[in-house]
């Protein structure tokens, strides 16, 4: 299995501000992803974090709103920019192992007021 550490675990932010979420994975992970889970909903993929290059975003998500970095194999950040109450969600980092098994961090519960 893979170990995924994510922080902060939760935050309450003012609208119009930005929050950066950090994700640290162990060396067994080959790929990293960011998901969003809105209240009472399932997980939706935001983007694939690519090492050393721009992330690959899913339909409905854009780099200006959710800039992502992955400077090396084991670390990635997701920034939620210019936040509004609609951005209140759980944000989850995921790592894919060489055996194609996907593990998740504990998530960041974001509340925008």
């Amino acid at each position, binding site marked *: 299995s893979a170990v*995924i550490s994510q922080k902060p675990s939760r935050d309450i932010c003012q609208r119009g501000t930005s929050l950066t979420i950090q994700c640290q994975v162990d060396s067994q992970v080959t790929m990293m992803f960011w998901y969003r889970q809105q209240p009472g*909903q399932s997980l939706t993929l935001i983007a694939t974090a690519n090492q050393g290059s721009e992330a690959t975003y899913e339909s409905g998500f854009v780099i200006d709103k959710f800039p992502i970095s992955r400077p090396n194999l084991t670390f990635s950040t997701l920034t939620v920019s210019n936040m509004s109450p609609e951005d209140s969600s759980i944000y989850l980092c995921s790592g894919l192992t060489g055996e194609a098994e996907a593990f998740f961090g504990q998530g960041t519960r974001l509340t925008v007021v």
Partner: protein
Amino acid sequence: EDQVTQSPEALRLQEGESSSLNCSYTVSGLRGLFWYRQDPGKGPEFLFTLYSAGEEKEKERLKATLTKKESFLHITAPKPEDSATYLCAVQAHSSTGKLIFGQGTTLQVKP
């Protein structure tokens, strides 16, 4: 379009009452089907990956099976600590490894 549908949305069982959760999927070439358990306020916890029709995997009171169109998560003699939301997800051969999730089944086991 790749899609995952889970049923039922919610399930209440008495302790010891066995049942099954269903995950129906359509995907353009299945690489793997994943089952996760998610407790409130936590990230999904990996349970199983199934790769081909006919495959079965077991872990304690849980057993996952796979056909060409659906997967079942069988829960035998559940206990209150099995209460959680169970998520199913598929990964397509054509994808970069991303998962497409169903809406989940919320299981409540009463003592």
